[in-house]
């Protein structure tokens, strides 16, 4: 009898729960759905008080984000802010914070609210973060992600939810490949087709090496960049001795380095992330046959203080390709001052200025498309916002003059190569002066 009762209660609970869900679901969806012209004001309060005849809020194919007169413009981020690669996302987040400060904390007389999710620099983290962001319909835009793997997994969710997504640091070439790009995606970071070409040019012309091995970790960023490098290196007359792959959680790279050593390359290019990258740097010195003679080169994924801490003295003298700080425009000096004042240190990674620009092209697009109701309510058509960002042309940013191409590449890419010096390792700071840049 008791068992029967329990079962009965459970079934009843289940039915109630399902009923509740069904009742809630449409209500939750409503604000993002395109409001019909008759149901003018989504918020009851504003509808009752101030709606003079004649004002029609805009309609939009993807829905309209409505910001009440006293509500903030909600800007979301999806950056990696913890773990070995945390510096990458924290750096970008700080860039956006400074951009918001420069606007006086306001857009169109509305406060800017800026928060988001840690996406962990992994596909799983990206998916989870995107799901959480997509569930909150107050966001007008998502700035992110940090790592290409995150957006590859989480991007479709954000895209379907109608968001405009602008990344300051995704560089994998296939994210803006017309066949694979998802609608509403833009980036202010360079495409790794550019970085791969610069790294190969540096290896061939400046270092004068003829043979190289590459290592990637299976992530879209690392694989894309390693392949871009290899293609350009071979096109330029070099020979790729082996293309190796590891997994990002590996710690023992001596076996794979021993295999590489059997082909005697003059250089190893390993555009991977901080944890694995620092271990490879360290272990390359311990593998006989590689030793000190082989040139080591990594890329912007390892441009972080934690990389120098992890690799220690083994990193001194190695090279890293990354955005060229010296090519940034005049406003960058002021940015650095504000950064120092606000955070008490120099930028911790490479994409702070790109994040600053990402926020500003969003802000410019928002100012173009937002419709202000007579009571101060903002109506932002999501498709209109995407179109406005896509139409960005000759925008003066910190990283250069930004123009979005039809595939979402908005960057004005300048890549330089940096050499790790002793003070970078000792003080755990990223290099600020390029060692070489194309055309030098």
């Amino acid at each position, binding site marked *: 009898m008791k068992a029967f009762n329990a079962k009965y209660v459970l079934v009843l609970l289940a039915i109630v729960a399902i009923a509740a869900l069904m009742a809630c679901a449409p209500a939750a969806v409503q604000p993002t759905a395109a409001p019909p012209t008759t149901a003018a004001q989504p918020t009851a309060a504003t509808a009752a008080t101030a709606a003079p005849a004649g004002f029609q809020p805009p309609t939009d194919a993807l829905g309209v984000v409505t910001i009440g007169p006293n509500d903030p413009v909600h800007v979301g981020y999806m950056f990696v802010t913890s773990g070995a690669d945390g510096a990458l996302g924290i750096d970008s987040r700080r860039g956006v914070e400074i951009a918001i400060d420069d606007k006086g904390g306001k857009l169109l007389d509305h406060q800017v609210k800026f928060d988001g999710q840690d996406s962990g620099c992994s596909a799983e983290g990206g998916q989870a973060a995107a799901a959480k962001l997509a569930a909150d319909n107050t966001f007008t835009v998502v700035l992110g992600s940090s790592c290409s793997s995150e957006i590859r997994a989480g991007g479709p969710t954000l895209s379907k939810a109608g968001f405009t997504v602008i990344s300051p640091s995704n560089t994998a070439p296939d994210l803006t490949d017309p066949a694979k790009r998802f609608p509403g995606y833009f980036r202010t970071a360079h495409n790794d087709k550019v970085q791969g070409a610069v790294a190969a040019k540096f290896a061939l012309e400046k270092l004068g090496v003829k043979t190289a091995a590459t290592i990637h970790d299976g992530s879209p960023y690392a694989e894309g960049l390693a392949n871009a490098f290899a293609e350009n290196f071979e096109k330029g007359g070099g020979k790729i001795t082996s293309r190796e*792959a590891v997994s990002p959680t590996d*710690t023992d790279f001596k076996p794979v380095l021993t295999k590489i*050593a059997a*082909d005697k390359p003059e250089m190893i290019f390993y555009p991977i992330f901080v944890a694995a990258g620092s271990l490879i740097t360290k272990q390359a010195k*311990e593998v006989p*046959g590689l030793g000190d003679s082989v040139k080591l080169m990594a890329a912007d994924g390892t441009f972080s203080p934690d990389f120098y801490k992890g690799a220690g003295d083994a990193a001194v003298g190695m090279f890293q390709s990354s955005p060229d700080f010296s090519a940034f425009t005049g406003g960058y000096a002021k940015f650095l001052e504000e950064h120092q004042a606000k955070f008490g240190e120099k930028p911790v990674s490479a994409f702070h200025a790109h994040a600053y620009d990402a926020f500003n092209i969003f802000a410019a697009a928002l100012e173009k498309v937002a419709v202000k109701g007579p009571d101060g309510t903002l109506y932002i058509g999501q498709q209109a916002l995407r179109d406005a960002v896509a139409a960005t042309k000759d925008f003066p940013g910190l990283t250069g003059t930004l123009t979005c191409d039809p595939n979402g590449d908005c960057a004005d890419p300048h890549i330089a190569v940096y050499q790790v010096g002793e003070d970078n390792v000792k003080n755990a700071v990223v290099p600020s002066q390029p060692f070489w840049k194309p055309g030098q």
Partner: protein
Amino acid sequence: MLKRRRSKLEITDIFIYAFGIFIIAIILYGSFETLRQGKYSASQWADLFVFGITIGGIYALIALGYTMVYGILQMINFAHSEVFMAGPLTAFFLADALAKSGLLATNPAISLLLIFAFSMIVSTTVAVLLERIAYRPLRHAPRLVPLITAIGASFFLQYAFRGLFGTQFKVYPEIPALEGVVTIGVVRLTYTQILVMISAAALMIGLQAFVQRTRTGKAMRAVAESRESAALMGINVDSIILTTFVLGGALAGAAGVLYALVFTQVSFAMGFIPGIKAFTAAVLGGIGIIPGAMLGGLFLGIVESVGPTLFLDGLNIAAPYQLKDAIAFTLLVLVLIFRPSGIMGGQTQEKKA
């Protein structure tokens, strides 16, 4: 069970055996091709074996913790990977302090002993608390209950350490006394590798002696045979179980420091992968059997290090080290096809099951 299978060969058995033989054929063909091409020198093969034995020794030490607990409680202690993480992550602060004070450079032996002792004490404490708080109250619950508890405890410990020490990895200081290389013929060993091998061997021999020669060891074996009978013979089962966790924890703490010396980076998440590997090693050797865990660990370490090059390079498969885990687990399957209770799993194992 086995007898019945032998008398009536089922189609699935034939399929599984054919699969096993197919894999062996690929391995043999791949190895033959790689060696025929002669791309790698003898010293490079020796290097690969040395790397494999180093990591294998560490796997073996962790695997002992899994296997001893299984032998006594028939339970997989999934939180053991966090016991392994707790020691070296906490001992990092001691190592860092010793390095800053200069003691690590002037008195490396004492410093290392201190670091080992500290790490072992922390790991042991975590293991003991785990047993007292999470497992003992569930001693008579169905077997799945402590298993799920172990997974929960594993998450709890991981995130507790994440909260305590942050998400960044910490870098162990370099020990000047361990920088150096010994060359014997084609074999080239760094001092760190020698230290790892000697410590792992010493700990394993010590454990084996303890289990085989002491009264407590005898009691452990008795509890492993049958908990009820052991209790009837006047053995305090609870205290023997506690002893098992103490031993497992201490070995994991030592393995953690060895891991930190070889790979230098420690973080709250460092336990997961070695934990899975060590568990695999324990199964590979025959779970519940102490020498099995040692053998399984070494075997897995060597296969991971040598396998991708030896088996796949000759077949012209690109980037074989991406498949290192696939190779390790394929070999696990292979061993389990032909020896379902592991390499060392023989009569005793079947009797128990």
